[in-house]
Structures are given as structure tokens and as C-alpha cells.
């Protein structure tokens, strides 16, 4: 059996397969199906300074090969994460990636401060910058290099030693420009991609299908967009490790991301369909490596041949 362990921005992971934020809670429910210590890592649901109630329902609708969601980051807040979820995850020997979110730069920094003091045992931190910036007409932080820089630099200062992975939104004109801003501001790696903006309408009632009107598209429908995003960013910044995500449900899907340049991958929406898909993806990557005599995942990263 191939050695699946990897090094991601200096930290050792058992496998390159993580579970994506918001699709695996804080691990407990998922642990009915997946022993959490067999995952490369758990990126927990984004956590905010205070508990967020979330948006009204309906919060989701199925779309061709995917789904739209508008949850509004319902979560119990960073204190609950630190006091309850984190100890449970660490007790189960899980590799934990926190995910932080906020509506102002200051909120991100305050959450990061709390992690500095209370987050011992965390392996990495994803910074979910696909949140409305209340100080800038509710444009998402991830939509401008300036606000991306402000959040990442602020969190960097609050967490000088943590491995930071800003998670970028694909809904921008130049992803590499935003990626560059995040790296400049101190990112150790990048997480690509968050959901794509979408909308669906119930024509009988002439109403949007989501109470939040628009939502985030995820699932197999977005995979080609995500693979392209990873490839583009990897080409621009080959030394920056990327956690690739977007529509992964099989090993083949995951390998597309790895060949495009992702050092690790995260399984998202597929957890809903097959709660064990993260393990099946992991197993399939191992089989592929055996079949192709590949000794380490690192050999595969970015190895797609685009010329010749």
C-alpha cells in the first residue's frame, strides 16, 4: 500500500484527503460513518466571534449535479468550538483545521486571538473570506485584494505561528491577483475553491428557491471550474501549497485536483450523499499510486502534462 502521508505547509498529514468546511460539522455526526483519525484532516464549520443564527429556510435546493445553499454560517461561536468541539476532536485523535469567518476585519482578528490562546492542538487555520464585509457595502472580503490583505495580515499577526490557508472565492475576475494578495499578506497555503454564486427560481410561485435569494453552488457541477482555479494558481505560485476542493466525490476527481497542483484535497457536498466518500477517495488514491508505482503523493502534485 502506498504511503499516503503528506506535508502541507510544513505540517504532517496522514492522508491528502480532508473534509471541507460546513460539510462535516465538527466531526461528531460524521464519526458515525468515518473514524475521524483516518482523515487527512477535518476542516470544521466556519466559526465566528459570537454565535450566528443563520438565514431563514429554505436554505438549499438541488440543481443539476449539485446544490445551492444559503446557510448564513449558522454556528455556535468560537468559544463553543474551543470549549466543546476541539477537545472532542483532539481526544479522537483528529487532525483539526479551524475555519474562521467574520463580518469585519476586527472580528476575524478577535477569533484568531481566541485561537491563539485556546486553540492548542489545531493543525491549521482556514480563513473563510467569502463573507460579506459590512464595512465595505457588504462586498465579500475575497472580492478585493485590499480586503483580502487586511484580513489575512490581521490574522497573521494574531496567529504568528499557525499554518494559515485563506479560502478564496472563485467569483472574481482574477483569482491569481487575490491569491497573490493573500500570499503577500502571510498565507502559508491557499484553499481553493469556495462555492460559486448561483440562483434558482420556482417559476410556479415566481419566487427564488432560496430564502437568501442567491446561494453557493457546490457539488460535481463546479468541479471543472475548481480544477481550473487550482491549476491557474499553482502555475502562478508553484511553491504555495493548495487544498483543492469543489465537487470531489471519487478518487479520480481528487486526482484531477492533485495533478492540477493541489497538495491536498477536501471532500465537501459528497459527504451528504455518501457519508463515507472521504475514505473511499483515500483508498482509491492509494490504489492509483500502487497501480502507477508512485511512491508519494508529492510526486503527483502539479504533474499534469499540458505540453507535448
Amino acid at each position, binding site marked *: 500500500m502506498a504511503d499516503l502521508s503528506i506535508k502541507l505547509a510544513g505540517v504532517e498529514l496522514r492522508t491528502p484527503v480532508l473534509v471541507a468546511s*460546513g*460539510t*462535516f*460539522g465538527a466531526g*461528531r*455526526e*460524521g*464519526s*458515525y*460513518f468515518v*473514524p*475521524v*483519525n483516518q482523515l487527512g484532516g477535518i476542516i470544521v*464549520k466556519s466559526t465566528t466571534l*459570537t*454565535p450566528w*443564527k*443563520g438565514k*431563514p*429556510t*429554505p*436554505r*438549499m*435546493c*438541488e440543481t*443539476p*449535479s*449539485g*446544490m445551492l*445553499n444559503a*446557510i448564513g454560517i*449558522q454556528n*455556535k*461561536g468560537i*468559544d*463553543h468550538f474551543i*470549549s466543546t468541539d476541539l477537545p*472532542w476532536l483532539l481526544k*479522537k485523535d483528529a487532525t483539526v483545521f479551524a475555519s474562521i469567518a467574520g463580518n469585519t476585519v476586527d472580528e476575524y482578528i478577535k477569533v484568531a486571538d481566541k485561537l491563539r490562546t485556546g486553540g492548542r492542538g489545531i493543525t491549521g487555520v482556514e480563513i473563510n473570506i467569502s463573507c460579506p464585509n459590512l464595512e465595505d457595502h457588504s462586498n465579500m472580503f475575497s472580492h478585493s485584494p485590499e480586503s483580502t490583505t487586511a484580513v489575512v495580515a490581521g490574522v497573521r499577526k494574531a496567529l504568528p505561528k499557525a499554518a494559515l490557508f485563506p479560502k478564496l472565492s472563485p467569483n472574481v475576475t482574477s483569482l491569481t491577483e487575490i491569491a497573490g494578495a493573500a500570499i503577500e499578506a502571510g498565507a502559508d497555503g491557499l484553499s481553493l475553491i469556495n462555492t460559486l454564486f448561483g440562483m434558482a427560481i420556482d417559476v410556479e410561485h415566481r419566487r427564488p428557491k432560496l*430564502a437568501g435569494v442567491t446561494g453557493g453552488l457546490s*457539488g*460535481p457541477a463546479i468541479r471543472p471550474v475548481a480544477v481550473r482555479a487550482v491549476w491557474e494558481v499553482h502555475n502562478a505560485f508553484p511553491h504555495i501549497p493548495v487544498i483543492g476542493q469543489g465537487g470531489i466525490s471519487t478518487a479520480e476527481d481528487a486526482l484531477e485536483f492533485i495533478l492540477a497542483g493541489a497538495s491536498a484535497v477536501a471532500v465537501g*457536498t459528497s*459527504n*451528504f*450523499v*455518501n*457519508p*463515507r466518500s472521504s475514505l473511499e477517495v483515500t483508498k482509491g488514491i492509494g490504489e492509483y499510486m500502487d497501480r502507477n508505482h508512485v511512491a508519494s503523493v508529492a510526486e503527483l502534485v502539479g504533474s499534469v502534462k499540458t505540453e507535448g
Partner: protein
Amino acid sequence: MLLTRGEVLGHKKYGEHYHSLTIVAPEVGEQVQPGQFINVLCGEGSAHILRRPFSVYRVHKRGGWASTIEIVFDIRGAGTEYLAHLRPHMMVDLVGPLGRGFALPKGRAHCLLVGGGIGAAPLFFLADDLRNDGHRVDVILGARSNRMLLNPIEVRRLASVARVVTEDGSTGEQGRVTDVLEETIERCETEIIYTCGPHPMLEAVTKIGVNRKLPVQVAVEELMACGYGVCMTCVMPLKVKKKAGAGKSRARGARTSVNADGSQADAEDEVTYARSCTEGPVFNGASVIWNGHEEPVAPDQAELSPTGLAVAHGGFEDSADEHPPPGN
């Protein structure tokens, strides 16, 4: 909670409208309680990726042989269309049992079950269990018309008093379930109401029930992406009145999700979004904010539990969060 594959034992129809699938899933059959559901994969490799949730309509335990579960459904879209084409010996990929079922009374009680359309599905399993425990079971079964009534013949067999109502009067009495509710409550000396169906019906039943200080257990059907508590899409708005020491008593689905979060401990009233796949699909009707943004029917009676009817099982203890699975 199991992820398993079950063999279809039988596919039949109830009337011209409803399909029934009986599936061999022994472990699920042994664990499942009334009001719980299964989440079914409706075809692989299609553009419809998400599982579809279905209440367990009945469990058949055949002496010594593997128990089977039965679901009933009408064709709504691609998922149910797929299921309607399943035949014996075909396999179904399912997750279950999921959610928290109905809280059953401990002492002998007069139970009134109110079902609308396909929403009546989980009430048959509930009626079986209640009767086995020696409770009195009365039923009001309603639908728009004759063909949308779910198995009225069986209802007559199960219930001490069975009232069948259709909006167009094609079978039974003409009207809605709520038109005959008060009268039935009085006649049957109802002590607890269980209901499942469209939300406006659940709301109306709850209003009548709580006005009479009766506990009302409602089973909701929300859109679900995961069915096991990780995605937060399936939430119901609940309003919970906080009282000192209230966290201890049982039979209040309402407060679990709030109390799990100690950070809001001083708030008087709270609106919280509870996951209907794990904290539900059965809720205390009095705590639900039915129209999304306004007040619950009777916030004061969020306290109202199956009074004197202590919960025997399937109850509302703290959510799945507090009970991580053994072993990992």
C-alpha cells in the same frame, strides 16, 4: 445510524396514488422508532445527487427472520420516480434510522393521531407501537380528495375512533382535519396529539391543541441535504423560553439546540434554528415558529410536555451532539 444496502422485497400500491416499497434492512428495522426516517439514494451517477428522506411507514418483524422496513410515497420528481421503478431483488442504498422520533407516553394515555395526505406515513408505525404499549389510539386522516388518503381502511382497523375527512367530500366527511379536531378531542378524551402533514395543517392542529393545554408532537418535513446533522440546511425556527433549571426536564425537543450553547444562558427568549434531521423531525408544536419570522403559537407552552406522560423512548434528551457514537 447506518449506511447500508437493502434488498427490495416488495413494491405495491395503496390506492392509485401511493407507492410502497418494502426493504430488507434488518439492523435499521431493529433500531428504528416511530417518527424516524431513512435517507435513500435515488439512482447513481445521475444529475440528482442528493438522497431523499422518507419516514418509516411500518416495520415488519417476522419471527426469527430479518425485519423489513416499509416506506410509502407519491411521485413528485426524479427521486420518487426512480423509486417507483424499483422491483423485488433490486438494491437500495440507504442511511438510517435518522432523526428523533415521537416521544411516547409512559402511563396509559388517549392518543390522537392527525395525518394529512402522505404526511400520515409515520403515524401508522406510531399507532402500531402505541397500541402494543396499551394506549388508546384515535386517528383523524385527511386529504384533498379520496385518492390522496393514505390507506384509510387500515386506519379504521387501527384506531378506536377513526375520522376520515376530504376537502372535496369524495370520501368520509367533507372538510379539513381541523374542522373535526375539537369534537374528536372531546369525544375521545384526548391527552396527547401527534401530527404530521403540511405545515399549515401542523400549525392549525398545534393551535387547537395548545389552547386545550394538550401536548402536541409535530413531525415536519424540511428540505434536507445530508439528513445526519452536518449541513444545517434543514432547520426549523423554534422559540424557547428560558427558565431557571428548565434544562433538566425531558420531552422538550425545543430547547436542546439552545442549551447546547452555553454562551446565551441569560437570554429570556431565544429564537433558534434547530436541525430537523437530528433534533427533529419531531418537535414540540408549541415551540415552533411556523411562519418563519413571527411568534410561535404559544411560547408559554413551550414548557408543555406530554404532561404526566413521561417520555418512554425516542424522547428529547440532549441532541446527538452529546452522544457521540461508541468506539471512535
